[in-house]
């Protein structure tokens, strides 16, 4: 079986099931708007300090929306025990993992499509290609790690409790580099190119590592 076609098929299945139920996207969009609302009341924001605070609110909202999204990645599979069925097919676990990761990162991209315009709307920060590029690059690695830990905690009691504890420390490199990139894209000091370079490095590193680990995480 061609692993690329398997991955795309798994991703298509996840996206189609989301399209038919429309469970996650409205909930996540609402979640993000609520996070911005909390940011507004938690900080004293005016036109002067908005560029300094908005990147922080962006990453906080994105990270927690990501945790909610990835926590549900294997929910349907668990409820219907369909992961076991998928693993019984000759498809390679890495391809199945890649498919789940593609679908999950698409979900995160949809969150970002709500988050970035809303940030510009509410806080007046620039909505530029630089910001979008930084956020999208961070999404790749965050999705790879998030789906891997979602697969791990799917087999554990108290999974809602454990997913953030395991995932957040490993997301820190992305938040450090992505935070730096967004800050400099919004006019704060710091090198944008260096941060983007680091994001690409982290993406490659963690996509390769999670692909290597996928076999051990998914198989019974």
């Amino acid at each position: 079986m061609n692993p690329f076609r398997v991955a795309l098929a798994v991703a298509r299945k996840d996206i189609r099931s989301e399209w038919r139920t429309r469970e996650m996207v409205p909930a996540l969009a609402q979640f993000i708007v609520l996070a911005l609302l909390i940011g507004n009341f938690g900080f004293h924001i005016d036109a002067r300090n908005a560029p300094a605070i908005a990147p922080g609110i962006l990453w906080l909202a994105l990270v927690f929306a990501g945790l909610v999204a990835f926590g549900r990645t294997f929910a349907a599979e668990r409820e219907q025990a369909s992961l076991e069925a998928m693993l019984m097919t000759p498809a390679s676990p890495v391809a199945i993992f890649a498919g789940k990761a593609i679908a999950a990162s698409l979900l995160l991209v949809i969150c970002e499509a709500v988050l970035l315009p809303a940030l510009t709307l509410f806080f007046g920060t620039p909505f530029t290609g630089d910001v979008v590029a930084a956020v999208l690059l961070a999404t790749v690695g965050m999705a790879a790690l998030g789906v891997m830990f979602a697969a791990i905690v799917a087999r554990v009691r108290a999974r809602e409790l454990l997913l953030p504890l395991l995932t957040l420390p490993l997301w820190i490199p992305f938040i450090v580099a992505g935070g730096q990139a967004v800050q400099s894209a919004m006019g704060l000091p710091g090198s944008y190119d260096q941060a983007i370079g680091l994001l690409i490095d982290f993406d490659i590193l963690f996509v390769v590592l999670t692909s290597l680990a996928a076999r051990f995480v998914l198989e019974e």
Partner: protein
Amino acid sequence: MNRYERWAAAAAALMLVAGAAIFLYAPTDYLQGPVQRIFYLHVSSAIAAYGCFAVVLVGGIIYLRTESVIADRFARAGALVGVVFTTVTLVMGMLWAKPIWGSFWTWDARLTSTLVLWIIYAGYLLVRRLSDPGRQAARLAAVVGIFGFIDVPVVHFSVTWWRTQHPGPIIVNDALPAQMLTTFFLTMACTLVLAAVMVWVRYRIETLTDERQHIAEAVPVVAAREPEPVP
């Protein structure tokens, strides 16, 4: 006294020797005063923690390759002892930072990555606690342990843009007077012995736990008796 207790007593005695060297033999720092004596145990326990997490890494890799129960038990033991030593490092570092830097904490590369290290391996211990013991838990935890070990240099490397306040390596730079250096190596050796003994004792506890679990779970298989031939 069994041999575990004897070794534990020996390790504790060695730590007392190290303590004597720290407070009686090593000279007082000219600038920082007595608080600099924290240095010896602070750095030693950090090195011991790295050693313990290396045990988790190697144990995890061996487990994924061979499914050796021994490797997994060593990984479990290493994670617990490593978290203990990381805690010691963090707490002693904070106590040292308050008088010298003026605050308990600063978001410096070294401090941040040590805190992340602590969180990752505390998470490892939680995975072990929350998953049902067996092959699967061992395999998942091995993956967590390996990723944790990789993440720490990555975090450290990515945070180094920020101005760093934590002093760099001074041992290899030959910046210490001979008496301080001797005390440091003595403390480090004693701390490493203590860590090794703690891992070993913990390994024994994990073995006993596994065996008890095994006894509790295993259902004795009694072969059905052949039916008596009906005359």
